[in-house]
């Protein structure tokens, strides 16, 4: 699929929060099956989607992620029985909140990828990467990170540069 490196102006940073039992294993399967997908995704392993705190998603955007993927076991398959059910509600709520704050939800993807779904992992990771690539960088949080209260602003070259460096 991505046999040749395509020249993109913008390579998004995608962070994936996944559970160890299903999605991490699904991503492993994609590897053992030698499927190909864009190299933008960084995987952070959790025991369960139930462990994934919405703060991590927020933090990821703050720290420069252009897209965030959260993925775990299909309902009913949770290794811990109910972690993903709790997570599902938590993310439904958090998603609504981010939307209301004005975060483009196209940058935040949730999925169920089982240990057998290497193909689905590839599909989800590819889709999100391509979509975020098309959207461009997540400017909102990056701009915010560089902003100061008016009283604390000094026109230093460092700050100016930091601001200019936002892709």
């Amino acid at each position, binding site marked *: 699929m991505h046999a040749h490196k395509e020249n993109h102006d913008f390579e998004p940073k995608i962070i994936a929060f996944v559970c160890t039992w299903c999605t991490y294993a699904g991503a492993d399967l994609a590897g053992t099956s030698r499927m190909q997908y864009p190299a933008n995704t960084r995987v952070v392993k959790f025991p369960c989607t139930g462990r994934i705190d*919405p*703060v991590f998603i*927020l*933090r990821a955007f*703050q720290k420069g992620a252009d897209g965030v993927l959260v993925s775990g076991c299909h*309902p*009913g398959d949770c290794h811990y029985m*109910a972690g993903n*059910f*709790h997570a*599902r*509600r*938590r*993310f*439904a*709520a*958090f*998603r*609504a*909140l*981010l*939307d*209301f*704050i*004005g*975060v*483009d*939800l196209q940058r935040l*993807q*949730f*999925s*169920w990828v089982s240990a057998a779904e290497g193909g689905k992992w590839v599909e*989800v990771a590819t889709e999100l990467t391509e979509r975020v690539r098309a959207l461009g960088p997540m400017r*909102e*949080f990056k701009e*915010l*990170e560089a*902003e*100061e*209260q008016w009283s*604390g602003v000094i026109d230093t070259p460092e700050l100016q540069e930091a601001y200019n460096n936002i892709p």
Partner: protein
Amino acid sequence: MTNSAQTIDPALYAAVTDAVRAEARKVLESGAVAAVVGWQAGRRAGTAMPTIVTDPAKAADLIFSPACVNNLALYLTKAKKEVRGKGKIAIVAKGCDLKALVGLMGENQLKREELHIIGVVCAGVQGAAADRSLPLSEATIAGKCRECTVHTPENTDVTVGTLTELPHFTPTESAELARLEAMTPAERWSFWKEHFSRCIRCYACRQVCPFCYCEQCLCDRNRPQAVETTPRPAGNMAWHIVRAMHLAGRCAGCAECERACPMDIPLNLLNRKMARELKELYGHEAGFKPKEKGPLAEYREDDDQSFIK
């Protein structure tokens, strides 16, 4: 359009005041409670402040008026150890305050039997910028009261006051909510960004919230630091997102956060949005019965997952 018929009769509050005083004196004299949490008049005309009365003679200081804006449930949380230590406590509660009490019971913070709830029938309280010399009207009533559904608190130990027919008020908050929802994400972002940039991190919103009773706020932690503590735009945004998320499914809608905010950030919009979202998704409404579990502590196997691929 305002005329006299569209104001709320101050006599309603006067009657409640008398009844609150009598009840407070009664429970203090009988020793049924160690203290009564209520409101007393402030120095400035038309203001009030929370008070904790332990002396039956001081029961006469208690009042109820449109200035009694505070949600006194705050004083029964772990955040206020001094008050909790006094013993069994009576609390004067408006319908909206009661919802917070109910929520706190559901979160293992209060036991119903440890409380004596003096419910007050409330027609509304004044808004933040209201001219305090005027009776409550379209111009002066608080946003949350325009859409109040709990004028008469229920499941109290005693409820005082009689509700008269109230004027119709234009719901401003739901209109604002609708306005925001109609915006594009980018427009909403700039709306909130402007508001949050003004935030000075005085934490008045947190400190007056009956549900922010944590011993150690996540946002005060530095190992790891989940939210930057300095009042820069980045940390402010994170703080308000985390605050809204932590209250989702718990907030009972007293809107104290918004009222307390010295920077006029419309915080209750976030709370209302989350409350509505959780109601639509899971049929949950906070503050009506002490639920064993909140909407984010329980689940159904067939919960909506249309957003999950």
